[in-house]
């Protein structure tokens, strides 16, 4: 178990490093360069100043030197300087990450709660059409552009009904509405996978054995079906991290919230490489950590998995 965990952590680190490298390389594809963009905001940049500044920030170095320099910086906690913001990357991201964590965190919680409630009610309710409606909701959630409903929601809630502030002023609705919209969107795959897993679990013969024991549907669902079905949902939850970021960009734009979303846009448009790299580091780490947690949690949810690992099938030699 310890070896398994250690191996997974090693893999996770490699994934983060690769993600970091891939993005470093792809950012080089962008036209122009961060210094020119920075300077041209003020005036037509003087080539001499551009050169001086590129030297100052090391953009004149060969790519490999820049890359290794950045990488080395990471180990001493130096994430670089975000030229477009006039701040260090840590300051820039640190200043707004709380806002994104608040939005994404609650949205995630809401998504998980929503999908479990949806699935539970749909599984236990006897009325056929109610179940059909509940099952149709997640596909609908995933089909509605977040920005579109967001805009309409703001128009109605803030201007027509006047119950919600257009600015993120910390009031209940100004957080709840984006959380609900983003959460509903993120809940869709979780709920869909849960529905599917639960359907498959219900098809297992042990369910009939439980019924034959006289167990009620409620007991069967909560004591058995759910525990058998959550593992794939957990996997999806871990993968939802990326979706949360993408969703946050949109949601934050629609609701004028500060956060990583704005930084993504700023980083890419201003070609602020250290900023983009800092972001990737955060999201890749988040993604990898969540997946790691799920992987390590998996044996607790399903006692079979640990056993299953060593057995690999190789039929033909």
């Amino acid at each position: 178990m310890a070896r398994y965990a250690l191996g997974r952590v090693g893999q996770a680190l490699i994934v983060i490093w690769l993600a970091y490298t891939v993005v470093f390389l792809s950012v080089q594809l962008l036209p122009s360069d961060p210094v020119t963009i920075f300077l041209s905001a003020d005036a037509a940049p003087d080539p001499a100043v551009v050169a001086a500044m590129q030297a100052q920030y090391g953009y004149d170095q060969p790519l490999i030197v820049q890359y290794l320099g950045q990488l080395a910086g990471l180990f001493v906690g130096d994430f670089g300087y975000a030229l477009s913001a006039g701040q260090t990357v840590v300051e820039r991201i640190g200043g707004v990450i709380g806002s994104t964590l608040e939005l994404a965190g609650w949205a995630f919680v809401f998504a998980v709660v929503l999908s479990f409630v949806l699935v539970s009610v749909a599984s236990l309710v006897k009325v056929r059409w109610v179940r059909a409606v509940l099952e149709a909701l997640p596909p609908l959630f995933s089909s509605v552009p977040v920005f579109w409903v967001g805009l309409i929601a703001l128009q109605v809630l803030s201007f027509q009904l006047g119950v919600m502030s257009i600015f993120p002023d910390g009031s209940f609705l100004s957080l709840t509405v984006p959380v609900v919209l983003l959460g509903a969107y993120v809940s869709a795959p979780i709920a869909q996978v849960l529905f599917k897993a639960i359907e498959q679990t219900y098809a297992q013969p042990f369910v009939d054995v439980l019924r034959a024991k006289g167990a009620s549907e409620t007991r069967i669902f909560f004591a058995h079906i759910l525990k058998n079905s959550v593992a794939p949902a957990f996997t999806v939850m871990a993968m939802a991290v990326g979706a949360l970021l993408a969703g946050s960009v949109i949601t934050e734009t629609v609701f004028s919230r500060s956060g990583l979303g704005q930084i993504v846009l700023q980083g890419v448009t201003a070609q602020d490489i250290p900023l983009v790299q800092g972001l990737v580091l955060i999201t890749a780490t988040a993604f990898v950590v969540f997946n790691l947690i799920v992987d390590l949690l998996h044996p607790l949810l399903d006692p079979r998995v640990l056993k299953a690992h060593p057995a690999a099938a190789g039929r033909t030699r």
Partner: protein
Amino acid sequence: MALGIVEDVVAHQPGPTAGPAAGPHDANDLEPARARRRRRVDWALLLSGLPLLLILGFAFFPGVFTSQDPLNGIATQVMQGPSGEHWFGTDHLGRDVFARVVYGTSQTFLTAGLAVLVGLVVGSALGLASATLGRWVDPVIMRLIDVLLAIPSFLIALIIVTASEPGPISLGIGVGIGSIATFARLTRTEVMRIRALDYVEAAHLNGGNAWSVARRHVVPNAAGQILSLLVVDFGVAILAISSLGFLGFGAPPPTPEWGLIIAEGRQYLGAAWWMTTLPGLVIVLTVVLLGIFGRCVQKQLRF
């Protein structure tokens, strides 16, 4: 944006896929249910397929569905509400919004199609290689997929769109990269599942070589699942493209493109709700229909 499609996460347990009408309480009588399914008309397939066909018609023969000009507005008919003449109203330049939606279909579909194609070709090639070459190739490809997943697909799309001329090509590729991982994972699980089946081994016993077995058995049998993902992912791509359009990373106007139409209309949401709301509904409808259609295809083609 691209949440990806997570169909492949649920391991293909030997358990049956219940029939269309089956609730969770269905038991496991697989054979008859499948036989019956074959005979019966799949209404969901028809009801989602026909409107999709209509929308596809928009892409190929826009002139059949509207006689209005999508590019040149009539200055005297600026921002008029929906009416018999202008079903979706007119925009700030007096252009017919419905005509723009109709004419925009081809652009949107082209871009989404390219995105899906990128995901399909690269993704399933990776998945296939991963599943068949085994040994060190499999873990290496799987880690690569992890890397793809770890970088928000949104960021990749943003970088690619920014790095090149905006247009269907860069948008399509940018968005498509985001779905590579999904396709690769699904292809890998499907191919592994099928390869473990006896008939694949039997094909080898019957003199098939790796290539003919893949061509005759593995690929066609995996195609059903992948095809259904293709359909669903098409909808996901439409959403991703329109989201990028919303953020200002879409194709340049005046090319009508669905995301762009919404993005243009959104600043008039208070004054002319129809400019955003109605094209948005078209997107929602299309994506929902694609989702339903994809699931039907999956049911029909799953062996």
